[in-house]
C-alpha cells in the first residue's frame, strides 16, 4: 500500500533541461538490438501491452473481438505470451472481465469522465465505483488538466487521492495527458503530484490528443518515478500510451526503462504500453526475426 501524503508534503519539482532530455533520448534511439536480445525484447513488449479500444463507436462485438485477440495473439505461432490487460470504457468492463478473466489478463477501465475529465467530483466517483464494482482490476483516471494549468495543483492532488480511496485492491493509473500540459516542467510537476497522491502507475496520455507518448515525455516521467524510488524506496509503474505503433519504438522504450529505472521495472507489473496497433507490428517483427522474411499485415488479425 502506498503511504499517504498530504499535498504540502509533495517535494518541489526540479526544473527540466529540455535540451538535455532530447540529447539523452536521442541516445536511447541509437541502440541497435538484434537477434536473441531483440526476440526477448519483442516478447516482453507483447506481454506488456494494454490492448485498448476507447471509442464512441465501441460495441459489445468489438470488445469481444479485442478480448479474443488479447488471449490469442497469433495462433499460428505457439509460445507467445498473452497481453497484460485490455483497456475499455466502464460500460464494457463486465463483458471484458467475463471473457479475459480466465486467461489471467487484467481488465483496465478508464474513468473520471475520460477523456476530458471535465465533470464534478461526485460524477467521477460514481464513474469509478461503477467500474470497480463490475470487476475492473485497474482504473485509468484522467487528471483535471484545466485545473492543473490554472495552478490549482492541490485540487488535482485531492481528486487523485479521492479516487485512489475508491479503488480498493484495483491499481490506479493516473493519466496526465501530457499533450495538454505543454511543457516538460508541467509534466514533471504533474507526475510528482500524481505519485504522492497515491498513483500505482502514471500514464502519459489518453490517446485522443497529439502529441502523445513521446520519448521525451516518458523519460521525464520515468525520472520522476526514479526520484520517488530513491526518496522512499517504493516502486511506481509507468504506462506510455498513444503513438507507440511500431516494435522499434517499443524496444527503445524498454531500453529507456532499463537504463533509468532498472530491471525490476521490466515486467508487466510495473511497465505497460497503451496501444491498439502495436501488437500486430510486434508480431510481424517476431515472425520476421525467426524466418528472415518480411511480413505482411494481410496475414494477421485486424486490431
Amino acid at each position, binding site marked *: 500500500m502506498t503511504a499517504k501524503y498530504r499535498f504540502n508534503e509533495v517535494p518541489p519539482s526540479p526544473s527540466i533541461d529540455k535540451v538535455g532530455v532530447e540529447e539523452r533520448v536521442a541516445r536511447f534511439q541509437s541502440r541497435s538490438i538484434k537477434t536473441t536480445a531483440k526476440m526477448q525484447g519483442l516478447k516482453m513488449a507483447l506481454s506488456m501491452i494494454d490492448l485498448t479500444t476507447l471509442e464512441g463507436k465501441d460495441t459489445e462485438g468489438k470488445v469481444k473481438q479485442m478480448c479474443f485477440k488479447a488471449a490469442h495473439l497469433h495462433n499460428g505461432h505457439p509460445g507467445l505470451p498473452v497481453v497484460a490487460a485490455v483497456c475499455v470504457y466502464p460500460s464494457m468492463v463486465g463483458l471484458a472481465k467475463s471473457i479475459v478473466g480466465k486467461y489471467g489478463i487484467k481488465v483496465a477501465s478508464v474513468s473520471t469522465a475520460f477523456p476530458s475529465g471535465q465533470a464534478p467530483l461526485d460524477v467521477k466517483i460514481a464513474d469509478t465505483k461503477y467500474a470497480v464494482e463490475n470487476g475492473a482490476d485497474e482504473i485509468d483516471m484522467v487528471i483535471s488538466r484545466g485545473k492543473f494549468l490554472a495552478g490549482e495543483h492541490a485540487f488535482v492532488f485531492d481528486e487523485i487521492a479521492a479516487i485512489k480511496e475508491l479503488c480498493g485492491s484495483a491499481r490506479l493509473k493516473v493519466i496526465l495527458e501530457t499533450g495538454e500540459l505543454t511543457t516538460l516542467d508541467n509534466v514533471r510537476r504533474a507526475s510528482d503530484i500524481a505519485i504522492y497522491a497515491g498513483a500505482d502507475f502514471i500514464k502519459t496520455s489518453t490517446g485522443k490528443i497529439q502529441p502523445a507518448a513521446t520519448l521525451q515525455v516518458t523519460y521525464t516521467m520515468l525520472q520522476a518515478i526514479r526520484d520517488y524510488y530513491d526518496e522512499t524506496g517504493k516502486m511506481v509503474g509507468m504506462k506510455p500510451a498513444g503513438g507507440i505503433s511500431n516494435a522499434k519504438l517499443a524496444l527503445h522504450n524498454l531500453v529507456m526503462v532499463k537504463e533509468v529505472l532498472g530491471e525490476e521495472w521490466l515486467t508487466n507489473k510495473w511497465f505497460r504500453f497503451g496501444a491498439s496497433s502495436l501488437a500486430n507490428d510486434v508480431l510481424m517483427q517476431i515472425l520476421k526475426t525467426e524466418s*528472415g*522474411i*518480411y511480413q*505482411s499485415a*494481410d*496475414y494477421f488479425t485486424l486490431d
Partner: protein
Amino acid sequence: MKRVEVLKTYKLYIDGKFPRTESGRFYKVLNKAKEPIANVCLSSRKDVRNAVQSARKAQGSWQERTAFNRGQVLYRIAEMLEGRRAQFVEELMLENSTKKEAQMEVDNSIDRIVYYAGWCDKFNQVASSVNPVSSSHFNFSSYEPMGVIGIMAVQSSGLLGLVSMLMPVIAGGNSCVIIASEDKPLCAVTLAEVLNSSDVPGGVVNILTGHIDELWSPLSSHMDVNGISLDVRNKYVTKVQLASVDNLKRVRAYSNDFSLMQEQGIQFITDFQELKTTWHPIEKIGGASNSY
C-alpha cells in the same frame, strides 16, 4: 591546373523522397574506358523494406483514382521526359550508347509512355468479359490491380527496358518497387526525378539501385509484395520463383526484347491484374428466354 570533377551522387527514390541508402554504402559506375562516371547508392534489404512499405501505403489511393486520371498522370510523365530529353541522351551516352542509339532509346521511351497512358482507361473494357452461364445470372469478369509489384529491371537497357516494365504495372493501378539495372542505373534515378516532378503520387514508384545479388532475395520473399516482374536473362529467375511461393506471388519472367517497338501491349498490363468475376441475379427481360 586541372579541375577536379564533381561526380554526381545518384540517390534512391522512396516514398516520393530522395534518401541515401540506410546502409550508407555506394558504388562507382564505370564507362567503357573504366572511368568512374557516377556514385550510386548500394541499397540494402532495409531499403527494400522501406520501399515496400511506402509502395503499400500509396497503392490504395492510386488504385482508387479514376482510370482516366491515371492516364493523365502517365501522359504527364511523357511530357516531362520530353523536356529533359537532353539529359537522358547524355546519360545513355555515358553508359556506352552512341548518340544515335541514345536518341532513339529516349524517343521510344517517350512513345511507350504515351502508349500506356492511352491504355489506362481502355484496357479494362477491352480485356474484361461478360460470360455466358447456365442460370439466370448476369456474370462478368473485370480486372483489378494486384497491389505491390517488384520489378527487377532489364540489365542491358537503362531506360527503355525500365519504362517498358514499369508503365504497364502502374497503368493498371499497382504500385511498385524497382531494382534498377546494376551497370546502367543513371537513367533510372533521373527517371525518378521526372516522376517526382510530374503528378505521380509519392510511393507509387520506388526506385532502388545496387547489387541484384543482394536485393533479389528480400524483395521476392517479402510477404507484402504481390508480384514480380523480371527479365528471363536474370540469373535468379528460378530462385525468385521459389521464394515467391510462400504468398503465391505471380512471377513474370519476360524474354521480350523491349527495344523493339512491337514489344508493348495490353497483355503486359493484365499480367499484373487479378480477374474478379461477379454473379448478379437477373430477371428475364422482355419475355426473352435468355438474356445477356
